[in-house]
């Protein structure tokens, strides 16, 4: 894969969230980039697009989707793709991301990020759909590993082997979510460092960091806390292997002030040797 087609000087971004909009538009804080949830802006008009246009005047934006469902067994939703392409043209996102998961079947949507059975059949189908989407959208795609709470009898490989199988077949990028790796490692009893070390660093286009919640019997990916030390440790390992990589903090519930979220994200800088530069 020609990695030079991807921009690596994006630095550290945060998710664009409604409670912060007034602060951002009025104070214009310095932020390397914002990640938007694509589906929130795949509308025909009104306030969402007007606000987005104001953000685009000031900031770089990368699109992150939640319902493409490359792993669903049915075909891609053409209406979804068309709307996504319209948005891609609007934002000029340098790459876009969505999840390595499924969430719809027979036209019914769960609006969740459901885990895949790690089978060769699933990898082949998912990779085919990723190629179709990238061809249609004409922008590089990276798939994100999800947090999961269930494993399937049908699985034929580990999650990281499945991830590698899919991205190799699809020749696409990876959005490596180190918090999700941590959450899943606690829920499925594997070594998260083994996961990070197994991923092809040449394919990692972006990294997600986030907080989560520890419940009695499992860990839940809630995006409502600061990043904990073991996740920062995984992030450090990922950066050591991948080099400077666009990094984004997700904070989606009990959202604190903009300054607090941004300060949490900027903690990532201490692990990045140089924020600007093109990886070879």
């Amino acid at each position, binding site marked *: 894969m020609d990695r030079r087609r991807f921009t690596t000087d994006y630095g550290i971004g945060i998710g664009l969230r409604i409670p912060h909009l007034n602060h951002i538009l009025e104070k214009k804080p310095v932020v390397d980039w914002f990640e938007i949830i694509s589906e929130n802006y795949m509308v025909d008009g009104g306030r969402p697009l007007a606000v987005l246009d104001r953000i685009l005047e000031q900031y770089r934006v990368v699109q992150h989707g939640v319902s493409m469902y490359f792993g669903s067994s049915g075909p891609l939703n053409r209406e979804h793709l068309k709307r996504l392409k319209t948005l891609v043209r609007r934002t000029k996102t340098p790459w876009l991301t969505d999840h390595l998961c499924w969430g719809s079947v027979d036209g019914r*949507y769960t609006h*969740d990020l459901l885990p895949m059975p790690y089978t060769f059949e*699933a990898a082949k189908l998912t990779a085919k759909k990723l190629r179709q989407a990238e061809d249609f959208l004409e922008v590089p795609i990276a798939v994100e590993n999800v947090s999961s709470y269930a494993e399937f*009898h049908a699985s034929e490989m580990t999650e990281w082997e499945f991830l590698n199988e899919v991205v190799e077949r699809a020749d696409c990028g990876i959005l490596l979510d180190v918090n999700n790796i941590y959450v899943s490692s606690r829920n499925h009893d594997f070594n998260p460092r083994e996961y990070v070390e197994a991923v092809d660093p040449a394919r990692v286009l972006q990294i997600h960091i986030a907080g989560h919640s520890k419940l009695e019997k499992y860990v839940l990916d809630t995006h409502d806390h600061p990043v904990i030390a073991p996740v920062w440790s995984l992030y450090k390992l990922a950066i050591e292997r991948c080099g400077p990589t666009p990094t984004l903090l997700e904070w989606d519930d009990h959202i604190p002030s903009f300054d607090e979220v941004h300060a949490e994200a900027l903690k990532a800088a201490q692990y990045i040797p140089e924020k600007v530069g093109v990886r070879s």
Partner: protein
Amino acid sequence: MTLLETQRRMAAALMVPLTPEDRIAHRAPGGLTMAKEAAAFIKPNGRLSAKERLEIYSRSYWFRLLDSFRDDFPGLAAILGARAFERLARAYLADCPSRSFTLRDLGGQLEGWLAQHQEFAGGDPNLARDMVRLEWAHIVAFDALAGEALGPEDLARLTPSLRVGLQPYISLLRLNYPVDEFRVKTNADREDLTATSNVPAARARRGAPRVVRPPREQVFLAVHRLDLSVYYRRLTREQFRLLCALRAGRSIAAAIATSFESSSVAPGDVPELLRIWFSAWAQFGWLTRRRKANGGSHP
């Protein structure tokens, strides 16, 4: 088990409504116990059974959809009360699961579903139906397409034989209850964030909704947006009929004739009323050019 079969069984299982205690259902759609169904495709671990692992996803599914549904229909919740609204929401979502990639469309079938399931509509189905129509119109007004608007300067070029359109984001509602006022009263906090109304602001108040059913009253309403905020604008019967006729594609002359049929408005007052109405609608950006069949546009 193929990928498709796994996904069908898992989706079907997690979409079964939760128990009253918000736990996963006891039985899967095929009749198996949920424990046996989950064990057919999900592995247990040392802390959670297959059923408990599936339950995490089932609860997540229902809580996510119910949250979204509550956000979209606060007025209906105020009319029905919390328990009745919860029953309606769960029954509706069980019958009409999402068929869109966006939760924005979740309530799109509610009006039709409610007409078939009036047992969920509270004491007065017409009141609930009016609120559903208003709240769906609110969603449409928030983010639907805006066409190229005719401005005040374009009005001079309008002739009786021309046809003009209405903005796609506008909904015209004939209601049996003043649910616009009711929604603003019961949803004042939320309205501050997302919408505005021409119902006097002094009548809006903060605090917990007070469920006092509004008296029956015929209301003609345009749900629209201006400067990116959603507004409810009361119309006269004649304004409503004129706007409906324009939207239906009738010429301006035909629409005007329709609107004043059986009207109590004195004929001598009509020209001035029309001037005021069209001027206001042009200022709001409600009127659009209507596309010709050959791709051109009027006027």
